């Protein structure tokens, strides 16, 4: 009996020793809690781009872009009431306006012909959504997208943003966006 007790205590102590060792070793890798200061929006730079309807109605979906203080280009997706409000919608279809501030995913312009982002929503008015969006450099002539359910119509708006909304969630690599450049070459992006 005493032997079992000693063994139990030994297992507990070695498990705790493992926890402590991992804490010490990982402490040196801890990053500063980031405010993503480099990705803060330049005041007045936020613009609404492409918009599309939701498959089940309600406020339209929209891409919002802004420039970060470090010169990066940032994009987020949300709902719009047709005015200036942008953000998620509540159960009654009202748009909850949210500031651009640190809301977007940012990339250095020119590093890729297109920045392609897949956003997923677990619950939009009771059902999930997959939203493929982003922007294309001037070198891109046209884009096409295929996702769960087949090809999707995609158009670049005047700000060179694009947006596709589908019902349901998407497994990894289920979306393929193809950008045809002005020189005829093709770049593909899987999400």
């Amino acid at each position, binding site marked *: 009996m005493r032997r079992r007790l000693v*063994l139990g205590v*030994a*297992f507990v102590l*070695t*498990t*705790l*020793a*493992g*926890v*402590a*060792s*991992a*804490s010490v070793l*990982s402490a040196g*890798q*801890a*990053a500063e*809690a*980031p405010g*993503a200061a480099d*990705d803060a929006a330049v005041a007045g730079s936020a613009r609404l781009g492409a918009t599309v309807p939701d498959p089940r109605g309600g406020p339209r979906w929209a891409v919002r872009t802004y420039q970060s203080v470090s010169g990066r280009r940032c994009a*987020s*997706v*949300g709902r719009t009431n047709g005015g200036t409000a942008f*953000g*998620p919608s*509540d159960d009654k279809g009202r748009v*909850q306006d*949210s500031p651009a501030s*640190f*809301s*977007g*995913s*940012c*990339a*250095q312009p020119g*590093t*890729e012909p297109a*920045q*392609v*982002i*897949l*956003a*997923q*929503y*677990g*619950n939009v008015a009771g059902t999930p959504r997959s939203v493929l969006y982003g922007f294309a450099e001037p070198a891109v002539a046209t884009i096409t997208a295929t996702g769960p359910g087949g090809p999707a119509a995609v158009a670049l708006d005047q700000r060179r943003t694009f947006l596709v909304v589908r019902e349901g969630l998407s497994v*990894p690599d289920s979306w393929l966006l193809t950008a045809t450049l002005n020189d005829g070459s093709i770049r593909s*992006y*899987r*999400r």
Partner: protein
Amino acid sequence: MTASETSKHGRRRLTGTLLAMALGCSFAFGAMVQIAFADDYHTNCVPHGFVHGGSQTDGSFFSRVESGCGSGWRSCDIYVSGSYVGGLTVGNATCNAWSRNWGNFMECAATSHTTFSPYFGDHVHKASNWCG
């Protein structure tokens, strides 16, 4: 020599070798659990994890994987009380899922699930004031 022996009463007892192995496994288990739920934000190739906004209680927080460190896709998802809220998948950009883009949620019950293929697989970062 076998890893364990049978006593005259028919019961198997631990040898020194087996005991050392078992203790080693419990040490590794503790280390793995600690790494899996290590901290709210850490660096593996790129900084990533759970980021509180201006406060830990205002419902504004981020699941984030920063850009850089090569190509490959990054995903940053938000769960609250174990339920999937949503998230993003991006290329060489900051994967930045802001809770406010999905709604209003209890911050202390939220977790950030991050992946950067092929550099690290899906793992969980809890809010630093975890209450889930």
